[in-house]
């Protein structure tokens, strides 16, 4: 399946792009992260501490064990600091 993957804040800076289209066969978010980590050093660095990474699937907060089936947009970002 094909998903749009978005990165924000320091995840965007470390990976170097704000979004990219990715072909994946990962069943869940954790699997997608593993695929990304294996790609290049910059991904491995960005995802080195998963306790500092949050994820949203189609713009709803989710967890690393959430399934990817039917998802079109995956976003990774650090804990939010609004307000």
């Amino acid at each position, binding site marked *: 399946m094909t998903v749009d993957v978005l990165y924000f*804040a320091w995840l965007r800076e470390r990976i170097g792009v704000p979004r990219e289209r990715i072909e994946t066969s990962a069943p869940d978010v954790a699997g997608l992260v593993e695929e990304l980590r294996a790609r290049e050093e910059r991904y491995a660095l960005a995802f080195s501490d998963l306790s500092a990474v949050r994820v*949203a699937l189609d713009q709803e907060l989710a967890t690393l064990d959430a399934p990817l089936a039917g998802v079109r947009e995956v976003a990774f970002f*650090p*804990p*939010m*600091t609004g*307000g």
Partner: protein
Amino acid sequence: MTPHIRVQSEPFSPGEALEGIGAGAAGVGAIVSFTGIVRDLPGGGLLRMEIEHYPGMTERAIGEIADQAVSRWGLADCLVIHRYGALLPGETIMMVGTAAPHRADAFAAAEFLMDYLKSRAPFWKREVTQEGARWVEALDEDEAALGRW
């Protein structure tokens, strides 16, 4: 009622916004507003605060938080304004406003909105000084604050 939500880079007037909260709604006895301002760093030297957000999800996340506040505290009105982009020290970042029959509900709803916007709306702050830039880290206490709701 439908909350009024504005996500924008432009400055806004908290005073004008306050005048609109609860206007025309029946049974309003209490209006609470919170305004967030860019503070300089303890020793000074903040050149600007940059706020990144996730267009689309931002409006959706704020909308869900505001809907919860409206139904839980029976609000007659609910306003959220949040800016993004580059802001100078002293500039207004954001504002929430709540209108209810009684003061306890208006206060609780405004604090709930702030606690959730802080940790559940997709904004990220970056402080820029002469020495460089750094992403503001989320505080454990902000996450812990959600526990009281």
